[in-house]
């Protein structure tokens, strides 16, 4: 696709296991952060193993290039050992060395570059300070809380000065306050880091805040690629829609109406020029709720029961049940004035102009 000399990661990851088949093309330019999103079991961690050179050779048929080096080539059988790859990984489950204290865990990478013990520890101290965990320096990994361990793992990887950074859910174990803080720290380091960056996460905020580009994976295949904004605006599957906080349905458009595929519902839409299979998206803020059948301009009005009420900071997300499971964001005030509760009956309405329709 691109010139062979363009620095960055170019990987064709192919892993065939009995019940799981992974085939993904990835390209991450130097200085770019690519977020890899996908549901549990999509194959994200497997991709990390392949790039890091830790995948089981028996099922791995991948080709990986990093900058000007061929790390793996399935056709020629080339395989670079993990220690020569300069691939830095922060794993989901930390994998800190239990027999070393925190500072020695972080000094492990620097020491491998030939630094003396003292110098390597000094470097490690610097990274601990950068991540705000200097006071943990003398602890053993078993004496750390989940989040503390995660930070140490990040420091350890950064200290090894890799050519590419892979993060496998680096923020998963962090509390909400630390998360905001650490996301900022991470961003600084990502920005300061000249090589390609690959970030695996479940949290769309992480992806949207930290990534230049997002790749969405499902069941071993790429299902959507784009900037965070494109992904959010034009989700292509229910999973991506859920990620983006949008309601998405597939259906058949027929000049002004869309008959939805999986639900017993037909929506009236503003677009009359599209015919055939479409993706239909509705923002959670574009749906209104009413105690009585609403009068007015809304073309789509139906009655439903409330499945779930989730307070989300300053808004409350209401999820309706059949016939059309949609998520709706309302104000806490609306919840009390309408007397909304799980199981209660409400009327919902969408203006035709608020329904986005895209042919597929």
């Amino acid at each position, binding site marked *: 696709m691109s010139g062979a000399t363009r620095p960055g990661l170019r990987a064709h990851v192919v892993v065939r296991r009995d019940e799981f088949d992974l085939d993904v093309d990835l390209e991450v330019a130097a200085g770019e952060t690519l977020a890899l999103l996908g549901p549990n079991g999509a194959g994200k961690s497997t991709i990390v193993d392949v790039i890091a050179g830790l995948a089981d050779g028996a099922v791995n048929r991948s080709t990986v290039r990093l900058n000007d080096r061929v790390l793996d080539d399935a056709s020629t059988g080339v395989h670079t050992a993990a*220690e020569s790859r300069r691939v*830095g990984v922060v794993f989901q489950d930390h994998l800190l060395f239990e027999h*070393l204290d925190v500072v020695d865990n972080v000094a*492990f990478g620097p020491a491998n570059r030939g630094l003396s013990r003292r110098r390597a520890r000094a470097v490690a101290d610097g990274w601990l300070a950068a991540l705000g965990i200097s006071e943990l320096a003398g602890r053993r990994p078993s004496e750390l809380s989940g989040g503390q361990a995660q930070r140490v793992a990040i420091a350890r990887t950064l200290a090894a000065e890799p050519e590419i950074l892979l993060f496998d859910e680096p923020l998963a174990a962090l509390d909400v306050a630390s998360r905001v803080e650490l996301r900022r720290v991470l961003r600084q380091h990502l920005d300061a880091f000249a090589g390609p960056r690959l970030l695996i996460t479940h949290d769309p905020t992480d992806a949207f805040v930290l990534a230049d580009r997002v790749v969405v994976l499902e069941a071993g295949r790429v299902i959507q690629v784009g900037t965070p904004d494109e992904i959010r605006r034009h989700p292509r599957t229910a999973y991506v829609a859920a990620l983006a906080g949008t309601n998405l349905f597939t259906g058949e458009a027929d000049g002004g109406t869309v008959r939805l595929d999986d639900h017993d519902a037909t929506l009236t839409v503003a677009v009359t020029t599209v015919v055939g299979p479409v993706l239909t998206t509705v923002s959670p803020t574009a749906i209104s709720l009413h105690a009585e059948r609403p009068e007015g301009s809304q073309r789509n009005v139906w009655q439903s029961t409330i499945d779930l009420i989730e307070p989300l900071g300053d808004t409350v997300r209401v999820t309706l049940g059949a016939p059309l499971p949609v998520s709706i964001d309302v104000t806490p005030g609306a919840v009390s004035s309408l007397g909304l509760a799980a199981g209660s009956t409400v009327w919902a309405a969408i203006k035709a102009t608020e329904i986005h329709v895209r042919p597929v």
Partner: protein
Amino acid sequence: MTRSSTRPPALLAVLGAVGALLFVLPLVGLLEATPWSKLADLLSDDVVIDALRLSLITSVAATALATLFGVPLAWLLSRTRFRGRSMLQAIVTLPMVLPPVVGGAALLFALGRRGLVGEALDDTTGFVLPFSIWGVILANTFVAMPFLVITVEGALSNIDQRYEGVAAGLGASRLTVFRRVTLPMIAPSLRAGMVLAWARAFGEFGATVTFAGNLQGRTQTLPLAVFVSLDANRDAAIAMSLLMVTVSVVVLVVLRGRWWSGRST
């Protein structure tokens, strides 16, 4: 997580107690047969002192050699694939299976003055292994090393190898991974293997007497001294056996206090 206040299940307690009896009863028997009044005399003999010194030196040296060569061998057996690997894994138990006297003879065939390699060694360097302390150490190493290799190999197969992957990802060469990650992770098993090897070397008799001979002050270890005394001076033999047991228990209890205090969870 310690659950200190609960009782062990009865079945385990009973079986374990019977198991313990198998070790305790013979010890009690030995203590009963011990000539306590003459003990000090019997043990202050030159022969005993010499043999104890030699036993300590050679068993420690054999443990060191077994560790030096055995740990890498265990690593090769568990971390690399080569033809004949599982054959070699089985051959490692050779010294355990072979009656020690035959083991000593096999060592002679290989490393004796007229042996496969020993002859060349003698011809080129004039160095002769048998009838010297080196022969004792070699015989001890031969019988003791399987314990170390097998214990360490088992531990290597048990640890989570992803840690080695992480270390490699941090730029550590395979040797560094081995030194700084693998070895520390198997440390408790390594210690157990070394203790087993030492105990086996300390008690070794058959291979030593065949391969290295039995000369007071040069090659006569405590077990040889015990054996020699069995015929003519049974009291001395029992006294020396008791000495061996005592040394071993003291060494192990002290080691456990020092070394094994670190092992946890």
